[in-house]
Protein backbone atom coordinates (compact mmCIF):
# COMPACT_ATOMS: atom_id res chain seq x y z
CA UNK A 1 0.00 0.00 0.00
CA UNK A 2 1.10 3.55 -0.55
CA UNK A 3 2.48 5.54 2.32
CA UNK A 4 1.22 8.84 0.91
CA UNK A 5 -1.62 10.66 2.60
CA UNK A 6 -4.95 9.41 1.35
CA UNK A 7 -7.97 11.59 2.11
CA UNK A 8 -10.25 8.59 1.71
CA UNK A 9 -8.33 6.61 4.28
CA UNK A 10 -8.29 9.62 6.58
CA UNK A 11 -12.05 10.03 6.21
CA UNK A 12 -12.62 6.36 6.95
CA UNK A 13 -10.45 6.58 10.04
CA UNK A 14 -12.34 9.64 11.23
CA UNK A 15 -15.74 8.00 10.86
CA UNK A 16 -14.48 4.81 12.50
CA UNK A 17 -13.02 6.72 15.44
CA UNK A 18 -16.19 8.76 15.93
CA UNK A 19 -18.28 5.60 16.05
CA UNK A 20 -15.85 3.78 18.33
CA UNK A 21 -15.48 6.61 20.81
CA UNK A 22 -19.11 7.77 20.78
CA UNK A 23 -20.23 5.80 23.88
CA UNK A 24 -17.27 7.10 25.91
CA UNK A 25 -18.07 10.74 25.18
CA UNK A 26 -21.76 10.37 25.90
CA UNK A 27 -21.17 9.78 29.60
CA UNK A 28 -24.28 7.72 30.30
CA UNK A 29 -26.62 9.44 27.86
CA UNK A 30 -28.60 6.26 27.33
CA UNK A 31 -31.07 7.79 24.94
CA UNK A 32 -28.39 9.03 22.54
CA UNK A 33 -26.61 5.69 22.70
CA UNK A 34 -29.85 3.96 21.84
CA UNK A 35 -30.42 6.27 18.87
CA UNK A 36 -26.88 5.47 17.69
CA UNK A 37 -27.40 1.71 18.06
CA UNK A 38 -30.71 1.79 16.20
CA UNK A 39 -29.04 3.98 13.57
CA UNK A 40 -26.31 1.39 13.14
CA UNK A 41 -28.87 -1.36 12.48
CA UNK A 42 -30.48 0.86 9.82
CA UNK A 43 -27.05 1.57 8.36
CA UNK A 44 -26.41 -2.16 7.91
CA UNK A 45 -29.62 -2.42 5.87
CA UNK A 46 -28.65 0.72 3.95
CA UNK A 47 -25.42 -1.01 2.94
CA UNK A 48 -27.69 -3.65 1.42
CA UNK A 49 -29.54 -0.96 -0.50
CA UNK A 50 -26.17 0.34 -1.62
CA UNK A 51 -25.34 -3.01 -3.23
CA UNK A 52 -28.48 -3.17 -5.34
CA UNK A 53 -29.09 0.55 -5.96
CA UNK A 54 -25.68 2.15 -5.57
CA UNK A 55 -23.57 -0.46 -7.34
CA UNK A 56 -26.02 -2.34 -9.56
CA UNK A 57 -28.32 0.59 -10.29
CA UNK A 58 -31.63 -1.13 -9.53
CA UNK A 59 -34.05 0.80 -7.35
CA UNK A 60 -35.49 -1.78 -4.99
CA UNK A 61 -38.35 -0.48 -2.87
CA UNK A 62 -38.87 -3.80 -1.07
CA UNK A 63 -36.04 -3.03 1.30
CA UNK A 64 -38.15 -1.98 4.28
CA UNK A 65 -40.16 -5.16 3.80
CA UNK A 66 -37.09 -7.39 3.98
CA UNK A 67 -35.88 -5.42 7.00
CA UNK A 68 -39.27 -6.22 8.51
CA UNK A 69 -38.87 -9.92 7.78
CA UNK A 70 -35.59 -9.82 9.72
CA UNK A 71 -37.29 -7.94 12.56
CA UNK A 72 -40.24 -10.31 12.79
CA UNK A 73 -38.31 -13.56 12.39
CA UNK A 74 -36.10 -12.64 15.34
CA UNK A 75 -38.98 -10.99 17.21
CA UNK A 76 -41.38 -13.91 16.94
CA UNK A 77 -38.87 -16.74 17.31
CA UNK A 78 -37.32 -15.33 20.49
CA UNK A 79 -40.70 -14.64 22.11
CA UNK A 80 -43.56 -16.90 20.97
CA UNK A 81 -41.27 -19.82 20.19
CA UNK A 82 -38.72 -19.10 22.87
CA UNK A 83 -35.70 -19.58 20.63
CA UNK A 84 -32.34 -18.12 21.54
CA UNK A 85 -31.29 -14.96 19.72
CA UNK A 86 -28.39 -16.27 17.64
CA UNK A 87 -30.20 -19.13 15.91
CA UNK A 88 -33.13 -16.77 15.33
CA UNK A 89 -30.80 -14.28 13.67
CA UNK A 90 -29.35 -17.07 11.53
CA UNK A 91 -32.87 -17.98 10.41
CA UNK A 92 -33.68 -14.32 9.69
CA UNK A 93 -30.56 -13.93 7.56
CA UNK A 94 -31.17 -17.19 5.71
CA UNK A 95 -34.84 -16.37 5.16
CA UNK A 96 -34.09 -12.96 3.67
CA UNK A 97 -31.28 -14.39 1.54
CA UNK A 98 -33.44 -17.16 0.10
CA UNK A 99 -36.51 -14.92 -0.04
CA UNK A 100 -34.53 -12.26 -1.89
CA UNK A 101 -33.14 -14.75 -4.36
CA UNK A 102 -36.53 -16.26 -5.12
CA UNK A 103 -38.27 -12.87 -5.30
CA UNK A 104 -35.45 -11.73 -7.57
CA UNK A 105 -36.30 -14.44 -10.10
CA UNK A 106 -39.60 -12.71 -10.73
CA UNK A 107 -38.76 -9.10 -9.89
CA UNK A 108 -35.72 -8.92 -12.13
CA UNK A 109 -37.76 -9.85 -15.18
CA UNK A 110 -38.93 -6.25 -14.95
CA UNK A 111 -36.72 -3.31 -15.71
CA UNK A 112 -36.06 0.15 -14.34
CA UNK A 113 -39.24 1.90 -13.19
CA UNK A 114 -41.19 -1.34 -13.48
CA UNK A 115 -38.68 -3.00 -11.17
CA UNK A 116 -39.16 -0.14 -8.71
CA UNK A 117 -42.95 -0.47 -8.87
CA UNK A 118 -42.80 -4.25 -8.62
CA UNK A 119 -40.52 -4.21 -5.58
CA UNK A 120 -42.62 -1.50 -3.97
CA UNK A 121 -45.64 -3.78 -4.33
CA UNK A 122 -43.58 -6.61 -2.87
CA UNK A 123 -42.58 -4.47 0.10
CA UNK A 124 -46.18 -3.47 0.59
CA UNK A 125 -47.36 -7.07 0.56
CA UNK A 126 -44.80 -7.95 3.23
CA UNK A 127 -46.04 -5.02 5.29
CA UNK A 128 -49.66 -6.08 4.85
CA UNK A 129 -48.93 -9.64 5.92
CA UNK A 130 -47.10 -8.42 9.00
CA UNK A 131 -49.68 -5.83 9.96
CA UNK A 132 -52.76 -8.02 9.29
CA UNK A 133 -51.87 -11.63 10.08
CA UNK A 134 -52.85 -11.23 13.68
CA UNK A 135 -52.64 -14.87 14.79
CA UNK A 136 -48.97 -15.03 13.92
CA UNK A 137 -47.57 -11.50 14.02
CA UNK A 138 -49.96 -9.97 16.60
CA UNK A 139 -50.59 -7.24 14.02
CA UNK A 140 -50.72 -3.80 15.63
CA UNK A 141 -50.13 -5.06 19.15
CA UNK A 142 -46.58 -5.78 18.03
CA UNK A 143 -44.06 -8.09 19.61
CA UNK A 144 -42.60 -7.34 23.00
CA UNK A 145 -39.86 -8.92 25.03
CA UNK A 146 -37.50 -9.70 22.17
CA UNK A 147 -34.41 -11.34 23.63
CA UNK A 148 -31.00 -9.76 23.75
CA UNK A 149 -28.25 -11.74 22.10
CA UNK A 150 -26.81 -14.35 24.46
CA UNK A 151 -23.48 -13.12 25.76
CA UNK A 152 -20.05 -14.64 25.40
CA UNK A 153 -18.00 -14.71 28.60
CA UNK A 154 -17.61 -11.13 29.78
CA UNK A 155 -19.82 -9.69 27.01
CA UNK A 156 -23.29 -9.03 28.29
CA UNK A 157 -25.42 -7.70 25.46
CA UNK A 158 -28.19 -6.45 27.70
CA UNK A 159 -25.64 -3.76 28.56
CA UNK A 160 -26.41 -0.94 26.02
CA UNK A 161 -22.75 -0.11 25.40
CA UNK A 162 -21.83 -3.72 24.69
CA UNK A 163 -24.85 -4.09 22.41
CA UNK A 164 -23.78 -0.95 20.58
CA UNK A 165 -20.35 -2.40 19.89
CA UNK A 166 -21.87 -5.66 18.71
CA UNK A 167 -24.03 -3.86 16.15
CA UNK A 168 -21.03 -1.74 15.21
CA UNK A 169 -19.07 -4.91 14.49
CA UNK A 170 -21.74 -6.07 12.03
CA UNK A 171 -21.81 -2.57 10.54
CA UNK A 172 -18.07 -2.73 10.05
CA UNK A 173 -18.51 -6.08 8.32
CA UNK A 174 -21.11 -4.62 5.94
CA UNK A 175 -18.83 -1.68 5.15
CA UNK A 176 -15.87 -3.99 4.56
CA UNK A 177 -17.87 -6.21 2.21
CA UNK A 178 -18.82 -3.10 0.22
CA UNK A 179 -15.19 -2.02 0.12
CA UNK A 180 -13.92 -5.45 -0.97
CA UNK A 181 -16.65 -5.89 -3.57
CA UNK A 182 -16.03 -2.45 -5.04
CA UNK A 183 -12.36 -3.13 -5.58
CA UNK A 184 -12.89 -6.52 -7.19
CA UNK A 185 -14.15 -7.98 -10.43
CA UNK A 186 -17.52 -8.44 -8.73
CA UNK A 187 -17.77 -4.69 -8.20
CA UNK A 188 -16.78 -4.07 -11.81
CA UNK A 189 -19.47 -6.54 -12.88
CA UNK A 190 -22.17 -4.74 -10.90
CA UNK A 191 -21.06 -1.28 -11.99
CA UNK A 192 -20.95 -2.51 -15.60
CA UNK A 193 -24.60 -3.56 -15.26
CA UNK A 194 -25.48 -0.20 -13.74
CA UNK A 195 -23.78 1.76 -16.51
CA UNK A 196 -24.93 -0.19 -19.55
CA UNK A 197 -26.57 -3.58 -19.58
CA UNK A 198 -25.91 -3.99 -23.31
CA UNK A 199 -22.23 -3.27 -22.98
CA UNK A 200 -22.02 -5.51 -19.92
CA UNK A 201 -23.58 -8.32 -21.94
CA UNK A 202 -21.18 -7.76 -24.81
CA UNK A 203 -18.18 -8.34 -22.54
CA UNK A 204 -19.60 -11.55 -21.21
CA UNK A 205 -21.40 -10.48 -18.04
CA UNK A 206 -24.30 -12.70 -17.06
CA UNK A 207 -26.55 -9.75 -16.31
CA UNK A 208 -29.53 -11.71 -15.01
CA UNK A 209 -27.59 -13.89 -12.58
CA UNK A 210 -25.47 -11.05 -11.21
CA UNK A 211 -28.47 -8.80 -10.65
CA UNK A 212 -30.13 -11.61 -8.81
CA UNK A 213 -27.15 -12.28 -6.57
CA UNK A 214 -26.81 -8.55 -5.85
CA UNK A 215 -30.50 -8.40 -4.98
CA UNK A 216 -30.21 -11.43 -2.68
CA UNK A 217 -27.14 -9.92 -1.01
CA UNK A 218 -29.03 -6.67 -0.48
CA UNK A 219 -32.04 -8.36 1.10
CA UNK A 220 -29.71 -10.42 3.30
CA UNK A 221 -28.17 -7.27 4.74
CA UNK A 222 -31.68 -5.85 5.22
CA UNK A 223 -32.58 -9.02 7.16
CA UNK A 224 -29.45 -8.82 9.26
CA UNK A 225 -30.10 -5.17 10.10
CA UNK A 226 -33.71 -6.00 10.93
CA UNK A 227 -32.78 -8.93 13.19
CA UNK A 228 -30.41 -6.76 15.18
CA UNK A 229 -32.96 -3.94 15.28
CA UNK A 230 -35.47 -6.27 16.94
CA UNK A 231 -32.99 -7.11 19.71
CA UNK A 232 -31.99 -3.48 20.24
CA UNK A 233 -35.59 -2.28 20.46
CA UNK A 234 -37.00 -5.18 22.49
CA UNK A 235 -40.46 -4.13 21.34
CA UNK A 236 -41.33 -3.99 17.65
CA UNK A 237 -44.41 -3.20 15.59
CA UNK A 238 -45.42 -3.27 11.92
CA UNK A 239 -43.85 0.15 11.30
CA UNK A 240 -40.49 -1.69 11.28
CA UNK A 241 -41.59 -3.24 7.98
CA UNK A 242 -43.29 -0.22 6.44
CA UNK A 243 -42.84 1.48 3.14
CA UNK A 244 -41.91 4.68 5.02
CA UNK A 245 -38.84 2.89 6.24
CA UNK A 246 -37.82 2.07 2.67
CA UNK A 247 -38.00 5.73 1.74
CA UNK A 248 -36.13 6.77 4.86
CA UNK A 249 -33.34 4.38 3.91
CA UNK A 250 -33.43 5.77 0.40
CA UNK A 251 -32.97 9.23 1.85
CA UNK A 252 -30.06 8.04 4.01
CA UNK A 253 -28.21 6.67 1.03
CA UNK A 254 -28.95 9.61 -1.25
CA UNK A 255 -27.60 11.98 1.38
CA UNK A 256 -24.58 9.81 2.09
CA UNK A 257 -23.65 8.91 -1.45
CA UNK A 258 -24.77 6.09 -3.73
CA UNK A 259 -22.22 3.40 -4.42
CA UNK A 260 -19.63 4.74 -1.98
CA UNK A 261 -18.11 2.79 0.90
CA UNK A 262 -18.83 5.39 3.58
CA UNK A 263 -22.05 6.83 2.15
CA UNK A 264 -24.50 4.55 3.96
CA UNK A 265 -23.04 5.11 7.42
CA UNK A 266 -22.49 8.85 6.98
CA UNK A 267 -25.93 9.40 5.45
CA UNK A 268 -27.77 7.32 8.02
CA UNK A 269 -26.23 8.97 11.07
CA UNK A 270 -26.41 12.46 9.62
CA UNK A 271 -30.10 12.27 8.68
CA UNK A 272 -30.99 10.55 11.95
CA UNK A 273 -29.15 13.29 13.80
CA UNK A 274 -31.18 15.91 11.91
CA UNK A 275 -34.38 13.97 12.67
CA UNK A 276 -33.54 14.04 16.36
CA UNK A 277 -32.43 17.64 16.26
CA UNK A 278 -35.70 18.80 14.74
CA UNK A 279 -37.79 16.37 16.75
CA UNK A 280 -39.73 19.11 18.51
CA UNK A 281 -41.09 20.23 15.16
CA UNK A 282 -42.66 16.79 14.74
CA UNK A 283 -44.21 16.50 11.28
CA UNK A 284 -43.02 20.02 10.48
CA UNK A 285 -39.43 18.87 10.57
CA UNK A 286 -39.83 17.89 6.92
CA UNK A 287 -40.19 21.61 6.19
CA UNK A 288 -36.56 21.88 7.20
CA UNK A 289 -35.34 18.51 5.96
CA UNK A 290 -37.03 18.82 2.58
CA UNK A 291 -35.10 21.89 1.43
CA UNK A 292 -31.85 20.44 2.80
CA UNK A 293 -32.32 17.37 0.64
CA UNK A 294 -33.31 19.44 -2.41
CA UNK A 295 -30.17 21.55 -2.04
CA UNK A 296 -28.08 18.44 -1.60
CA UNK A 297 -29.48 16.72 -4.69
CA UNK A 298 -28.85 19.85 -6.76
CA UNK A 299 -25.32 20.56 -5.59
CA UNK A 300 -24.07 17.13 -4.60
CA UNK A 301 -26.06 14.57 -6.57
CA UNK A 302 -23.59 11.91 -5.55
CA UNK A 303 -24.24 12.54 -1.89
CA UNK A 304 -21.86 13.88 0.70
CA UNK A 305 -19.28 11.13 0.43
CA UNK A 306 -19.59 11.11 -3.36
CA UNK A 307 -19.05 14.88 -3.39
CA UNK A 308 -15.97 14.68 -1.19
CA UNK A 309 -14.56 11.83 -3.29
CA UNK A 310 -15.13 13.81 -6.45
CA UNK A 311 -13.41 16.81 -4.89
CA UNK A 312 -10.42 14.71 -3.87
CA UNK A 313 -10.31 13.11 -7.33
CA UNK A 314 -10.35 16.52 -9.00
CA UNK A 315 -7.52 17.86 -6.84
CA UNK A 316 -5.53 14.72 -7.49
CA UNK A 317 -6.00 14.69 -11.25
CA UNK A 318 -5.01 18.38 -11.32
CA UNK A 319 -1.80 17.36 -9.62
CA UNK A 320 -1.31 14.55 -12.09
CA UNK A 321 -2.02 16.85 -15.04
CA UNK A 322 1.20 18.74 -14.44
CA UNK A 323 3.34 15.81 -15.44
CA UNK A 324 0.94 14.34 -17.94
CA UNK A 325 1.86 13.28 -21.41
CA UNK A 326 -1.23 11.76 -23.03
CA UNK A 327 0.69 10.09 -25.86
CA UNK A 328 3.37 8.51 -23.78
CA UNK A 329 3.26 5.48 -21.58
CA UNK A 330 2.63 5.87 -17.91
CA UNK A 331 3.08 2.27 -17.01
CA UNK A 332 5.51 3.16 -14.27
CA UNK A 333 2.74 4.47 -12.07
CA UNK A 334 1.70 2.23 -9.25
CA UNK A 335 -1.41 0.13 -9.41
CA UNK A 336 -2.51 1.73 -6.14
CA UNK A 337 -3.02 5.02 -7.92
CA UNK A 338 -5.68 3.44 -10.03
CA UNK A 339 -7.60 2.04 -7.15
CA UNK A 340 -7.47 5.40 -5.42
CA UNK A 341 -8.81 7.12 -8.48
CA UNK A 342 -11.44 4.44 -8.72
CA UNK A 343 -12.52 5.24 -5.21
CA UNK A 344 -13.12 8.76 -6.42
CA UNK A 345 -15.85 7.57 -8.70
Amino acid at each position, binding site marked *: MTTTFSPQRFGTLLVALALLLAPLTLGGEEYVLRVLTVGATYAIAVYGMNLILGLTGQLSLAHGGFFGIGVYVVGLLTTDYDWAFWPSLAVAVTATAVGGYVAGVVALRTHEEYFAIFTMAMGFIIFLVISRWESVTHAHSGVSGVKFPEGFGAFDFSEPTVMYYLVLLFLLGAA*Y*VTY*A*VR*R*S*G*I*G*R*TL*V*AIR*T*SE*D*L*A*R*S*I*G*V*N*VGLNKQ*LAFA*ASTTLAGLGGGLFAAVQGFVGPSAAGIDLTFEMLMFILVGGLGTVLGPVVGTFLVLFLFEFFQDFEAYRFLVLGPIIVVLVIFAPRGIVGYLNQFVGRVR*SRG*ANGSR*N*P*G*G*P*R*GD*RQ*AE*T*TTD*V*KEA*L
Partner: protein
Amino acid sequence: MTLLEVRGLGKHFSGLHAVDDVDLDIAEGRITAIIGPNGAGKSTVFNLLAGFYRPTSGTVRFRDRDITGMSPHRTVAHGIARTFQTTKLFEDATVLDNVLSGRIVRSRSTAFDAVLRTPRHRREERLNLEKAMAALEFAGIAGYRDEIAASVPQEVQKRVSIALALATEPELLLLDEPAAGLTEEETVGFAQLIRDIVADGVTVGLVEHRMSMVMSLADHILVLDHGKEIASGAPAAIRTDPQVIEAYLGADHTDQEGAG
Protein backbone atom coordinates in the same frame (compact mmCIF):
# COMPACT_ATOMS: atom_id res chain seq x y z
CA MET B 1 -10.06 -23.43 -41.53
CA THR B 2 -13.54 -22.15 -40.87
CA LEU B 3 -13.86 -20.56 -37.46
CA LEU B 4 -17.50 -19.55 -37.72
CA GLU B 5 -20.02 -21.25 -39.95
CA VAL B 6 -23.43 -19.74 -40.56
CA ARG B 7 -26.14 -21.60 -42.47
CA GLY B 8 -29.56 -20.38 -43.47
CA LEU B 9 -29.57 -17.63 -40.85
CA GLY B 10 -32.82 -15.72 -40.61
CA LYS B 11 -34.35 -13.10 -38.33
CA HIS B 12 -37.90 -11.90 -38.73
CA PHE B 13 -39.24 -8.98 -36.74
CA SER B 14 -43.03 -9.31 -36.94
CA GLY B 15 -43.24 -9.79 -40.67
CA LEU B 16 -40.08 -7.90 -41.56
CA HIS B 17 -37.34 -10.17 -42.85
CA ALA B 18 -34.33 -8.31 -41.44
CA VAL B 19 -32.05 -11.21 -42.29
CA ASP B 20 -33.12 -13.93 -44.67
CA ASP B 21 -31.34 -17.22 -45.38
CA VAL B 22 -27.77 -15.98 -45.02
CA ASP B 23 -24.78 -18.31 -45.30
CA LEU B 24 -21.37 -17.13 -44.15
CA ASP B 25 -18.01 -18.73 -43.46
CA ILE B 26 -15.51 -16.77 -41.46
CA ALA B 27 -12.05 -18.19 -42.03
CA GLU B 28 -9.65 -18.28 -39.13
CA GLY B 29 -6.95 -15.63 -39.16
CA ARG B 30 -8.67 -13.59 -41.87
CA ILE B 31 -10.76 -10.45 -42.14
CA THR B 32 -14.30 -11.08 -43.31
CA ALA B 33 -16.42 -8.04 -44.09
CA ILE B 34 -20.15 -7.63 -44.42
CA ILE B 35 -21.23 -4.69 -46.54
CA GLY B 36 -24.45 -3.46 -48.00
CA PRO B 37 -26.69 -0.39 -48.20
CA ASN B 38 -28.26 1.08 -45.07
CA GLY B 39 -30.78 -1.27 -43.54
CA ALA B 40 -29.39 -4.29 -45.36
CA GLY B 41 -29.22 -6.26 -42.12
CA LYS B 42 -25.47 -6.12 -41.48
CA SER B 43 -25.68 -5.19 -37.81
CA THR B 44 -28.53 -7.64 -37.32
CA VAL B 45 -26.25 -10.43 -38.51
CA PHE B 46 -23.68 -9.35 -35.92
CA ASN B 47 -26.35 -9.26 -33.23
CA LEU B 48 -27.37 -12.78 -34.19
CA LEU B 49 -23.80 -14.08 -34.12
CA ALA B 50 -23.04 -12.51 -30.74
CA GLY B 51 -26.27 -13.78 -29.22
CA PHE B 52 -27.97 -10.40 -28.80
CA TYR B 53 -30.82 -11.59 -31.01
CA ARG B 54 -32.16 -15.09 -31.25
CA PRO B 55 -32.34 -16.25 -34.86
CA THR B 56 -35.74 -17.34 -36.16
CA SER B 57 -34.05 -19.86 -38.45
CA GLY B 58 -30.65 -21.26 -39.31
CA THR B 59 -27.60 -22.32 -37.36
CA VAL B 60 -24.41 -20.71 -36.13
CA ARG B 61 -21.44 -22.93 -35.41
CA PHE B 62 -18.27 -21.69 -33.79
CA ARG B 63 -15.29 -24.05 -33.83
CA ASP B 64 -17.73 -26.81 -34.72
CA ARG B 65 -19.85 -26.13 -31.69
CA ASP B 66 -23.47 -25.13 -32.16
CA ILE B 67 -23.90 -21.69 -30.58
CA THR B 68 -27.23 -20.81 -32.21
CA GLY B 69 -29.25 -18.64 -29.86
CA MET B 70 -26.66 -18.81 -27.11
CA SER B 71 -26.82 -15.79 -24.79
CA PRO B 72 -24.07 -13.16 -25.11
CA HIS B 73 -22.34 -13.96 -21.83
CA ARG B 74 -21.74 -17.47 -23.14
CA THR B 75 -20.68 -16.50 -26.66
CA VAL B 76 -18.11 -14.14 -25.12
CA ALA B 77 -16.86 -16.95 -22.91
CA HIS B 78 -16.51 -19.11 -26.04
CA GLY B 79 -14.38 -16.39 -27.62
CA ILE B 80 -16.58 -14.05 -29.63
CA ALA B 81 -16.26 -10.36 -28.78
CA ARG B 82 -18.00 -7.44 -30.41
CA THR B 83 -18.04 -3.67 -30.54
CA PHE B 84 -21.06 -1.49 -31.20
CA GLN B 85 -21.81 0.88 -34.03
CA THR B 86 -22.26 3.76 -31.63
CA THR B 87 -19.29 3.51 -29.31
CA LYS B 88 -20.44 2.16 -25.96
CA LEU B 89 -18.21 2.64 -22.94
CA PHE B 90 -18.57 2.79 -19.17
CA GLU B 91 -18.44 6.55 -19.44
CA ASP B 92 -17.93 7.51 -15.80
CA ALA B 93 -15.08 5.06 -15.31
CA THR B 94 -11.45 5.49 -16.21
CA VAL B 95 -10.07 4.06 -19.43
CA LEU B 96 -8.21 1.41 -17.45
CA ASP B 97 -11.30 0.43 -15.44
CA ASN B 98 -13.21 0.10 -18.69
CA VAL B 99 -10.70 -2.34 -20.08
CA LEU B 100 -10.45 -4.16 -16.74
CA SER B 101 -14.18 -4.86 -17.06
CA GLY B 102 -13.32 -6.92 -20.10
CA ARG B 103 -11.52 -9.31 -17.76
CA ILE B 104 -14.71 -10.24 -15.88
CA VAL B 105 -15.48 -13.10 -18.23
CA ARG B 106 -12.01 -14.60 -17.73
CA SER B 107 -12.06 -14.29 -13.93
CA ARG B 108 -12.91 -17.18 -11.68
CA SER B 109 -12.77 -15.56 -8.27
CA THR B 110 -16.05 -14.92 -6.51
CA ALA B 111 -17.36 -12.32 -4.10
CA PHE B 112 -16.10 -14.53 -1.29
CA ASP B 113 -12.59 -14.45 -2.72
CA ALA B 114 -12.83 -10.68 -2.88
CA VAL B 115 -14.03 -10.34 0.71
CA LEU B 116 -11.47 -12.80 2.06
CA ARG B 117 -8.74 -11.56 -0.30
CA THR B 118 -7.72 -15.10 -1.13
CA PRO B 119 -4.45 -15.73 -3.00
CA ARG B 120 -6.51 -16.67 -6.05
CA HIS B 121 -8.24 -13.31 -5.94
CA ARG B 122 -4.98 -11.37 -5.64
CA ARG B 123 -3.29 -13.41 -8.34
CA GLU B 124 -6.20 -12.86 -10.65
CA GLU B 125 -6.41 -9.13 -10.00
CA ARG B 126 -2.71 -8.83 -10.81
CA LEU B 127 -3.11 -10.85 -13.99
CA ASN B 128 -6.17 -8.79 -14.98
CA LEU B 129 -4.25 -5.57 -14.55
CA GLU B 130 -1.42 -6.91 -16.71
CA LYS B 131 -3.76 -8.10 -19.43
CA ALA B 132 -5.75 -4.86 -19.39
CA MET B 133 -2.56 -2.81 -19.67
CA ALA B 134 -1.38 -5.03 -22.52
CA ALA B 135 -4.69 -4.43 -24.34
CA LEU B 136 -4.34 -0.66 -23.80
CA GLU B 137 -0.80 -0.68 -25.13
CA PHE B 138 -1.84 -2.80 -28.08
CA ALA B 139 -4.53 -0.25 -28.94
CA GLY B 140 -1.99 2.55 -28.52
CA ILE B 141 -3.81 4.33 -25.71
CA ALA B 142 -1.87 3.35 -22.57
CA GLY B 143 -1.24 7.05 -21.91
CA TYR B 144 -4.96 7.61 -21.29
CA ARG B 145 -5.34 4.92 -18.66
CA ASP B 146 -6.40 7.21 -15.82
CA GLU B 147 -8.62 9.52 -17.87
CA ILE B 148 -12.38 9.29 -17.54
CA ALA B 149 -13.68 7.50 -20.63
CA ALA B 150 -16.27 10.15 -21.48
CA SER B 151 -13.62 12.87 -21.52
CA VAL B 152 -11.18 11.41 -24.05
CA PRO B 153 -11.40 12.19 -27.80
CA GLN B 154 -13.76 10.14 -29.95
CA GLU B 155 -10.97 8.29 -31.71
CA VAL B 156 -9.50 7.26 -28.37
CA GLN B 157 -12.95 6.14 -27.20
CA LYS B 158 -13.21 3.90 -30.21
CA ARG B 159 -9.81 2.46 -29.45
CA VAL B 160 -10.89 1.90 -25.82
CA SER B 161 -13.91 -0.05 -27.01
CA ILE B 162 -11.61 -2.25 -29.09
CA ALA B 163 -9.18 -2.70 -26.18
CA LEU B 164 -12.16 -3.62 -23.99
CA ALA B 165 -13.26 -6.26 -26.48
CA LEU B 166 -9.69 -7.57 -26.78
CA ALA B 167 -9.41 -7.84 -22.99
CA THR B 168 -12.01 -10.62 -23.12
CA GLU B 169 -9.40 -12.63 -25.09
CA PRO B 170 -11.55 -13.33 -28.14
CA GLU B 171 -10.77 -15.63 -31.03
CA LEU B 172 -13.25 -13.76 -33.18
CA LEU B 173 -13.70 -10.01 -32.93
CA LEU B 174 -16.78 -8.50 -34.56
CA LEU B 175 -16.30 -4.81 -35.32
CA ASP B 176 -19.46 -2.88 -36.17
CA GLU B 177 -18.43 0.16 -38.23
CA PRO B 178 -15.22 0.83 -36.33
CA ALA B 179 -14.32 3.81 -38.51
CA ALA B 180 -17.69 5.60 -38.43
CA GLY B 181 -17.19 9.27 -37.77
CA LEU B 182 -13.42 9.20 -38.06
CA THR B 183 -11.32 11.43 -40.30
CA GLU B 184 -9.47 9.98 -43.26
CA GLU B 185 -6.23 10.07 -41.35
CA GLU B 186 -7.67 8.37 -38.29
CA THR B 187 -9.22 5.72 -40.53
CA VAL B 188 -5.78 4.81 -41.81
CA GLY B 189 -4.64 4.32 -38.22
CA PHE B 190 -7.66 2.12 -37.52
CA ALA B 191 -7.01 -0.02 -40.56
CA GLN B 192 -3.51 -0.59 -39.23
CA LEU B 193 -4.89 -1.49 -35.80
CA ILE B 194 -7.21 -4.05 -37.39
CA ARG B 195 -4.27 -5.54 -39.30
CA ASP B 196 -2.33 -5.72 -36.03
CA ILE B 197 -5.22 -7.53 -34.37
CA VAL B 198 -5.25 -10.15 -37.11
CA ALA B 199 -1.47 -10.47 -37.00
CA ASP B 200 -1.86 -11.12 -33.29
CA GLY B 201 -3.98 -14.19 -34.09
CA VAL B 202 -7.50 -12.84 -33.72
CA THR B 203 -9.96 -13.38 -36.55
CA VAL B 204 -11.92 -10.25 -37.47
CA GLY B 205 -15.45 -9.78 -38.71
CA LEU B 206 -16.14 -6.30 -40.01
CA VAL B 207 -19.24 -4.31 -40.81
CA GLU B 208 -18.21 -1.13 -42.55
CA HIS B 209 -19.58 1.56 -44.80
CA ARG B 210 -16.33 2.86 -46.15
CA MET B 211 -15.64 0.94 -49.32
CA SER B 212 -12.02 2.00 -49.51
CA MET B 213 -11.35 0.57 -46.06
CA VAL B 214 -13.22 -2.65 -46.73
CA MET B 215 -11.58 -3.20 -50.10
CA SER B 216 -8.09 -2.74 -48.72
CA LEU B 217 -8.62 -4.80 -45.56
CA ALA B 218 -10.98 -7.66 -46.23
CA ASP B 219 -9.98 -11.10 -47.44
CA HIS B 220 -13.57 -12.05 -48.02
CA ILE B 221 -16.68 -9.94 -48.44
CA LEU B 222 -20.35 -10.76 -48.03
CA VAL B 223 -22.75 -8.27 -49.61
CA LEU B 224 -26.27 -8.03 -48.19
CA ASP B 225 -29.26 -6.18 -49.53
CA HIS B 226 -32.66 -6.26 -47.84
CA GLY B 227 -31.42 -9.01 -45.56
CA LYS B 228 -30.40 -11.32 -48.41
CA GLU B 229 -27.01 -12.25 -49.74
CA ILE B 230 -26.46 -10.76 -53.18
CA ALA B 231 -22.76 -11.54 -53.56
CA SER B 232 -19.89 -13.12 -51.72
CA GLY B 233 -16.22 -13.39 -52.60
CA ALA B 234 -12.85 -11.69 -52.75
CA PRO B 235 -12.76 -7.85 -52.92
CA ALA B 236 -11.70 -7.82 -56.57
CA ALA B 237 -14.71 -9.90 -57.58
CA ILE B 238 -17.11 -7.90 -55.44
CA ARG B 239 -15.94 -4.62 -56.94
CA THR B 240 -17.02 -5.66 -60.42
CA ASP B 241 -20.15 -7.62 -59.49
CA PRO B 242 -23.08 -6.11 -61.40
CA GLN B 243 -25.58 -6.92 -58.65
CA VAL B 244 -23.46 -5.15 -56.05
CA ILE B 245 -23.08 -2.10 -58.24
CA GLU B 246 -26.81 -2.02 -58.79
CA ALA B 247 -27.58 -2.37 -55.10
CA TYR B 248 -25.30 0.51 -54.26
CA LEU B 249 -26.19 2.82 -57.12
CA GLY B 250 -29.79 1.79 -57.53
CA ALA B 251 -30.70 2.10 -53.90
CA ASP B 252 -31.21 5.48 -52.33
CA HIS B 253 -27.77 5.36 -50.86
CA THR B 254 -25.58 8.33 -50.10
CA ASP B 255 -21.97 7.32 -49.92
CA GLN B 256 -20.65 8.22 -46.53
CA GLU B 257 -17.05 8.30 -47.67
CA GLY B 258 -15.24 11.00 -45.76
CA ALA B 259 -18.39 12.21 -44.06
CA GLY B 260 -19.32 11.59 -40.45
